[in-house]
């Protein structure tokens, strides 16, 4: 598996381009009106022509998401370590955590607005809250499933609990953490946009709400495209980072003779 063929590399792009072509063809064939489903070419035209106006919104959403994501990952990792390294904390916290996560985040936004006013802060918090859960669950699972034999290697040397956590537990749960980052970053966008649509005066979510009230459907779709693009880009970045950091867990049959 050392060599990926050129076709394999190109395949995801071909699928995306193919989807646009089919979309364009079907819309033209059935003469779908623009306010129902715009043509991809129209959407790209909007992206191109109104780029200057779109850019600040995109930057706002991206920054909000990243701040929330980083906060969520840090908090989630800490909670995950606490839960994963102690059975007691695990049993005590898990129901609360599940209950907390089951609340639809959109229902929390109005409360956040009451507390912090509308704007960036509730959006950051919504995206932070939404991406904590997968991180917590994965880090806790990684720690809880660490093989006791591996811990014994350090335990037999008289290592402290902290040594064992740093030496075995945390490296062992890195693949779990990175797997959760890919989920968390996409969720973080969801969190930001939910909050922006409800209470903000900037950001892609806010722009889309205004555009749809003006029945400017191509602009709404342009917003969606920007979100999808940012999502893919960050997902890919974390997938790459994951490969670099935890290659030991991702090995294929590459036995070196």
């Amino acid at each position, binding site marked *: 598996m050392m060599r990926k063929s050129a076709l394999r590399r190109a395949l995801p792009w071909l699928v995306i381009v193919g989807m646009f072509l089919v979309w364009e063809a079907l819309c033209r064939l059935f003469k779908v009106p623009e306010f129902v489903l715009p043509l991809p070419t129209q959407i790209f035209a909007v992206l191109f022509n109104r780029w200057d106006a779109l850019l600040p919104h995109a930057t706002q959403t991206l920054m909000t998401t990243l701040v929330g994501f980083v906060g969520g990952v840090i908090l989630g990792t800490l909670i995950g370590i606490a839960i994963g390294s102690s059975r007691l904390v695990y049993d005590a916290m898990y129901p609360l955590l599940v209950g907390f996560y089951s609340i639809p985040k959109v229902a929390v936004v109005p409360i956040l607005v009451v507390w912090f006013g509308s704007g960036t802060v509730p959006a950051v918090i919504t995206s932070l809250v939404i991406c904590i859960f997968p991180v917590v669950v994965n880090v806790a699972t990684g720690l809880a499933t660490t093989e006791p034999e591996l811990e014994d290697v350090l335990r*037999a040397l008289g290592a402290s609990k902290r040594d064992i956590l740093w030496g075995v537990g945390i490296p062992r749960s890195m693949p779990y953490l990175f797997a959760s980052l890919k989920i968390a970053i996409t969720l973080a966008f969801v969190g930001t946009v939910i909050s922006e649509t409800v209470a903000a005066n900037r950001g892609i979510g806010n722009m889309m709400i205004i555009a749809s009230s003006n029945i400017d459907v191509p602009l709404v779709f342009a917003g969606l495209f920007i979100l999808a693009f940012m999502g893919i880009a960050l997902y890919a970045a974390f997938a790459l980072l994951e490969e670099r950091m935890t290659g030991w867990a991702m090995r294929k049959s590459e036995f070196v003779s």
Partner: protein
Amino acid sequence: MTADFVLLDTVDLTYRAGEGQDTLALKGATLAIGKGEFAAIVGPSGCGKSTVLKLVSGLLKANRGRVEVGGHTVEGPVKIVGMAFQNPTMLPWLTAIDNVLVPLKIVQPYRSRFKRQRAEYEERARALFKTVGLAGFEKRHPWQLSGGMQQRASLCRALIHEPELLLLDEPFGALDAFTREDLWATLQTLCMTRRPTVILVTHDLREAAYLADRIFVMSARPGRVLATHEVRFPRPRTLDMTFSEEFVALNHALRNEISDAREEVAA
């Protein structure tokens, strides 16, 4: 014999696995090993041989009886122990050499010097790799090594901090006969120069007789020591010796004791 360095005094140990599923692994196990002595423990499989090592290393606590190392009651893991487990248990995210360096990152006084003297420690690890025939594989990750290579690296890890007490749990189990014999000689040389106290758990009677000063034969579960054999062959021992009449006789005696112990259970 000098004062006992390792002592098990009528030790019982039960593995708890929930209601009615407890396993009594050791019952009244007693054995004493002098400082610098090479002891081997043999016995039918599942007789609690590995459990003895875990008790001595402090990884397990006895339910009854006393475990002493170096004159102190064992309360928990101690740093003077080097342990090679039954499975190589390499940490998969570290290279072979980093795995071997792990004890130096944990055990004092190496720990506080580790950053400054890393190069020196790496040199020491390389020398060990060479001794066990792993030279050139330092930067490989464990999954890039064969099972036998991993076991050899695990042996290096047990030796790197020059422990006073070396606990070896079937360290040569997964090796082919020739490599195993090479490593017997290597281990014998290492032990003759550094004189650690060694407890070797094995089911290879030839291995026990070749390496050990004293062999303990354990009964089937619940394990206790059935018999003790002093092995008086001069050192360094050679592989040729293992074919001598005396050596074969010792092997034979051990074999009979173990098969009796097994029949005892069947009866």
